């Protein structure tokens, strides 16, 4: 099949706090295959944003390993990471905060090219910036604008352009449309999809919006309280979610259709604190199928015959 581009093994990130370590990411295993789009869903506070930052080495992991193209990059320092930054780009959640307000669009997009020495002279720089702007549905005249002169949707397209311009292998996208209105969300999603097809890119999306992940991803992962509880091909997960949390989460999403009303609340209670997660399976206090072993033994992420992996004693 495909080759693995990024792999994460037993990755942990604990933050110190007066009450004890906050286990934001607590033993995550996942593989991102080259040329695919991996979408990770989870509710706020589940650790998905921290995970992305550790994978990109913007935060140092507490434990575990990160591999890029089969190479262990966990111990890489700032200098060693630098050439890899060209291969692993990122698009941030809030486009209003992600762009420097004092730089023009041209400066913003050309900066990564300069840093990585990817363009010879101003002419070449200009050509690449214009091409990328066009790919994002923007015009040449936008180059001289400042971020405050652009709408939210345009700003996020600049954010994507900045990631695309260095021709990375993989782009990490942290809730790229959650700050945008629905009418402009579609445009970004279509442009991203087109760019991925044309440039044979790999995407790693994180979002709290299951319907968004469903549209953009081929492989899906579900995260709960610092751990991946279920992952696999999107169709399989959506068709028949196995983990009780995945089932509850999918059922809680309201549908924009008056004939489909949420009839049953499968997820009761609240997410426990990541400072002091429950013993055994950390979903056990909210799980309707809880058994005694769930309170004692932590289930491992096991691969099933249909290609998915699930961390639950029921399977």
């Amino acid at each position, binding site marked *: 099949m495909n080759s693995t581009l990024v792999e994460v093994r037993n990755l942990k990130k604990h933050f110190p706090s007066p009450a004890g370590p906050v286990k934001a990411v607590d033993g995550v295993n996942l593989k991102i295959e080259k040329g695919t789009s991996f979408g990770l869903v989870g*509710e*706020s506070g589940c650790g998905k944003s921290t995970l992305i930052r550790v994978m990109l080495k913007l935060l140092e992991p507490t434990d575990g390993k990160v591999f890029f193209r089969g190479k262990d990059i966990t111990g890489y320092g700032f200098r060693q990471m630098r050439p890899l930054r060209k291969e692993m780009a990122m698009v941030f959640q809030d486009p209003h905060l992600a762009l420097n307000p004092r730089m023009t669009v041209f400066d913003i997009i050309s900066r990564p090219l300069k840093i990585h020495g990817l363009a010879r002279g101003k002419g070449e720089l200009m050509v690449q910036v214009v091409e990328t702007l066009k790919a994002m549905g923007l015009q040449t005249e936008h180059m001289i604008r400042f971020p405050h002169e652009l*709408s*939210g*949707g*345009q700003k996020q397209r600049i954010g994507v352009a900045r990631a695309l311009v260095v021709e990375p292998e993989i782009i990490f996208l942290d809730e790229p449309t959650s700050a945008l*209105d*629905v*009418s*402009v*969300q*579609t*445009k970004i*999603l*279509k442009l991203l*999809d087109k760019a991925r097809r044309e440039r044979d890119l790999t995407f790693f999306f994180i979002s*709290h*919006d*299951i*319907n*968004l992940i*469903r*549209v*953009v991803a081929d492989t899906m992962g579900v995260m709960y309280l610092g751990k991946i509880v279920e992952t696999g091909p999107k169709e399989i997960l*959506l068709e028949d979610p196995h983990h009780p949390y995945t089932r*509850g*989460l999918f*059922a*809680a*999403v*309201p*549908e*924009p*259709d*008056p004939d*489909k*009303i*949420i009839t049953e*609340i499968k*997820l*009761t209670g*609240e*997410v426990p604190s990541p400072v002091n997660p429950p013993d055994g399976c950390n979903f056990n206090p909210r799980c309707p199928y809880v058994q005694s072993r769930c309170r004692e033994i932590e289930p491992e992420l096991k691969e099933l015959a249909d290609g998915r992996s699930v961390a639950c004693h029921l399977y």
Partner: protein
Amino acid sequence: MEELLKIEQLQVAFSTEEGPVEALDGVELTILQGTFHGLIGETGCGKSVTGQAILGLLDNNALIKGGRILYRDQDLLRLSPRKIERTIRGKEIAMIFQDPGSSLNPLFTIKNQIEEAIRLHRKAPAEKREEMVLQALKQVKLPDAENLMYRYPHQLSGGMKQRVMIAMMLACNPKLLIADEPTTALDVSIQAQFIKVLKELKEKLSLTVLYITHDLAVISELCDYVSVMYAGRIAENLSMRDLFKDPRHPYTIKLVNSVLGATTTLDQLEEIPGSVPRLINPPGGCRFHPRCEEAIPVCSQEAPPLREIKANHSVACHRR
């Protein structure tokens, strides 16, 4: 059904350094007793301003230029701020906001705060108030209400705080609740619990709610009628069923088709070209015309009035 609140030709402008912003320009909608009425639109369309105008909560730089807000045949815009505060706000019409964290006072217990609301708006002897607090907390399905009421806001999660806000509102027994994006700050699983509580209250207490949101999926769970706003005007007033089955305004159609559902594919999703206009200098005529594929010359010259096309369905479009 009886009309509980009727907004007629409401015009509100804000004075800013750059000039006047025409935030609302002729908003018209009617809320029927016992129904959930959704007010939807994108950022900056004026939906929150509409809610604030009803309760006299507009910022100091707002100017009400015209129109009426009729609540049981009295025009709320003609009441003094003091009169609104004493006789309407909290007592007849209550409001809950997007961020439950900043709506509660961090220095007082839940019981304290709900009791204060009861004291202000209802004639109830002091010894009965605690019972009323408990009853309200139980109505919104908060677990362990007896102990929970002695807690402070920071000890509760966002979903619980939002339910405390509803309980506070219920304790005062208002006729109309304005909910401004109450679930936007909540996770889907908590949102689902919150929606369920609201649905039960709707059945039991025949509550009337103006539900302000940008989320069409939530509207489809809760509302009976919907007003679609665009750039300070009502594009379409219609039933929730018509919103999904028979939308007429080009903006409504595009909006419905840009929402992600469980079966939509990327190809099916529609995009609306351009972006929402700034209201400091809105387009002339129909404010949607620069983004509208069906625009004809008249659209840029005259603002289309809201016309009824069938019962409970009116649309503001020259092409319909």
